[in-house]
């Protein structure tokens, strides 16, 4: 078991290594960050000086060697654009993305489950059908459009919420959070809803399907026959049984909302939310290699860790897997 875990860790290291090589080669093929960052008025000598200052005149394998050496000493390099350590930049932006993602998942849970429950209990009612129709929109509308519509309605037309930005923050454990202030919450509401829309639809449909499946089951009939109140039947017996897949999906969605910039970046850009998604896209646009590498390394490590934990749990839970490994 321990030997197996170590083997997985070694494999993970190779994945990270492979990823860094891909980023180095990829950025190298696309272009030179100095061409993008340099003042257009700079002359040829100045360009050469900057390239050599940033170490970009070295052959690629040597640049990579330096990077590996520094990385082993805990230094992932400094951003070409901001002249700050790449890890510090990512850490600065992480709270904003984290709180947005967590809020979005909370929305999905506290809106998706009740709505799905209702739609499952009253599948033929007008409201039940409307909820299901709405969930199709939640799946299919592009999130940049929804984001802009939210801003147009709630910020521009009605003036209830601020249109963009992060608002006031309050420091907790040395990290600025905006969910601790009213102003911050007001700023967070629309981006969180926008980010949650897809997840709400997903959870809603899962819950509805679960309810429809569970209701005709014997234990529900028995509970009813025993004379339990309808509320107790639904909220204790039915809900408990359908929550397992819902919780699994919510956990996965939390991970992918944080890790996959695809969702978050659109929302962060439309709402000018200073999170990691915007940082990575901006960094790719100007080929800010240290930030790209550090960010992707973090994501790879996150995923490797999740997979590792899942595999270990699997082995602990399922004796068959253990037996397979032994044979």
């Amino acid at each position, binding site marked *: 078991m321990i030997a197996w875990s170590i083997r997985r860790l070694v494999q993970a290291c190779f994945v990270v290594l492979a990823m860094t090589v891909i980023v180095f080669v990829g950025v190298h093929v696309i*272009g030179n960050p100095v*061409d993008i960052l*340099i003042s257009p*008025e*700079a002359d040829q000598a100045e360009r050469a000086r900057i390239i050599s200052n940033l170490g970009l005149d070295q052959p690629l394998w040597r640049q990579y060697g330096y990077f590996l050496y520094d990385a082993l000493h805990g230094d992932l390099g400094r951003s070409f654009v901001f002249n700050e350590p790449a890890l510090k930049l990512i850490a600065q932006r992480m709270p904003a993305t984290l709180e947005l993602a967590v809020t979005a998942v909370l929305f999905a849970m506290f809106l998706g489950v009740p709505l799905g429950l209702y739609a499952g209990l009253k599948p033929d009612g007008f409201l039940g059908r409307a909820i299901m129709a709405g969930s199709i929109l939640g799946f299919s509308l592009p999130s940049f459009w929804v984001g802009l519509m939210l*801003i147009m309605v709630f*910020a521009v037309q009605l003036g209830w919420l601020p249109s963009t930005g992060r608002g006031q923050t309050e420091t907790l454990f040395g990290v600025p959070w905006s969910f601790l202030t009213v102003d911050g919450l007001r700023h967070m509401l629309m981006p969180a809803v926008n980010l949650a829309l897809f997840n709400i639809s997903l959870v809603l449909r899962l819950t509805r399907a679960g309810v429809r499946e569970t209701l005709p089951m014997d234990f529900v009939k028995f509970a009813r026959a025993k004379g339990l109140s309808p509320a107790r039947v639904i909220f204790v017996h039915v809900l408990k049984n359908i929550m397992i897949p819902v919780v699994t999906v919510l956990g996965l969605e939390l991970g992918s909302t944080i890790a996959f910039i695809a969702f978050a970046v659109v929302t962060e850009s439309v709402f*000018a939310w200073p999170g990691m998604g915007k940082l990575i896209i901006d960094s*790719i*646009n100007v080929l800010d290699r240290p930030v790209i590498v550090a960010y992707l390394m973090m994501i790879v490590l996150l995923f490797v860790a999740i997979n590792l934990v899942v595999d270990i749990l699997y082995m602990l839970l399922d004796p068959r897997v253990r037996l397979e490994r032994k044979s």
Partner: protein
Amino acid sequence: MAMFGARVIWGTKMRPSFRMLSFVICLTLGRAHGQTLGIASSAPVTSIDPHYHTFAPNDSFGAHVYERLVTRNAAGDMIPALAVSWKVRDDRTWEFTLRDVKFHDGTPFTAEDVAYTLNRVPRVKNSPASFSIYTKAVTGTEIVDPHTILLHTAGPYPLLPNDLGNIFIIPHTLGPDPATEDFNSGKNAIGTGPYRFVSYNPGDRIEMERSDDYWGPKPYWKHVSYRIISNDASRTAALLAGDVGIIEFVPPTDLPALRKDSRVTLSEVVSNRSIYLWLDHAHDGPSPLVTGPNGEVLARNPLKDLRVRQALSLAINRQAIVDRVMENAAIPTGQYLRPGSYSYVPDLPPTPYQPDRAKALLAEAGFPKGLRVTINGPNDRYVNDAKIIQAVAQMWQRIGVRTTVEAMPWNTYVARAGKLEFSIFLLGWGVGSGEGLNPLRAQLATWNPARGLGTANRGRYSNPAVDALIDQAMGTMDDGAREKIIQKAMKLAMDDVPVIELHLQKNIWATRKGLEYEPRVDEATLAMGVRESK
């Protein structure tokens, strides 16, 4: 947690009760009206260090906190700032007389700070785009007295005040080699400007507060919240929602609607940023992306023929591009500078639209059946960049030039353009110095790394007569005489069609109704220029 009162952002829509509350709080705090101005900037400020990165958003922010010796007014003319006056002592010496003012931390500004700043600029660590291009002409400094400094140059250098108009002065009390990080944290963010630095939240906003002992006109706004909203649509929405008082770089697609919107006032001015097509002068043999009418490789590069270049230029209906593609956020041009600038050439109008003459010229040049070409361009750099080259391609089809359009992201594009892989490609050039020697030296002078000339000459245009005039102008210290030489050089060069000039962009700001902005030629968005309209 003072949400509703002390941080009233101008124009914020509040429900009546809150408005009343804020009014009361403002009265108790002794303020006459909402005093925070929200500015929405289109691109992130990458550093608070004024010498780290030559990048327009950084300069635009920097002008609030720091000041230069010489600066520019809204129209782009040089005016005194920290220097009261400057004069040429001899061909190699400039004398600057300095203003008696104080830095935000109370230390007096003296000649020592100027010398310190000029020394620091080239030494900033890891700078990806150093300001040393503007200080390298200075070979030595000599402090005469606390308010007089002599700057020496290797030879006659008439552009020194223009160059120093890019350098923000910081106090020498920051010690040797102050770190960029200490500027970002606010520790070193000390200038003499109208606003004090308060806080910087990367990618989100910078907060500033009026400096009450500022020497110049007292700025109208007490607090400035300089926010970064890079998404065009969101920036417009933030203005309409009243979260900010002013936005910059209004997207042309929103212009028709905003011009009619009663909640908004637009202010616009023609800039010194022209958009043009570079032509390949580098290849004598076949040009990479130009072939004969049937795709056959040509022995010679047709773009080397003046008649072909003229034909391509005459075939473009610039007014149509300005009207349809740019939504009137530009004017047609035939040169780099805006009308009215120093060294603008009056007898160099935009090339007229004459497709018939274009066809005749092509035939005369030996291509009666036209050519096949590819236009390359970025799709994320200039306003409507990809649409412009599509429009040009359609116009060229009409004179028999079969044109393919290839647009790509700037990061790939700039690398390929640098390797001379394109034949005809779109670029823009903003003339920071506001005078003609800048484009002449960077763009039209022969590519010469040893002398630092033709640095942005991506088409490798070369004309010895133009080069000679550039040298002559560089040695002429008298402004009037130099202007004549620059105009002569520019006329000579542009008649040779080294590039096909298309249009000059307009800089457009939108403010909430009741506010007005003095539009600036240099694209900077300054809180100092935003006022309540009368």
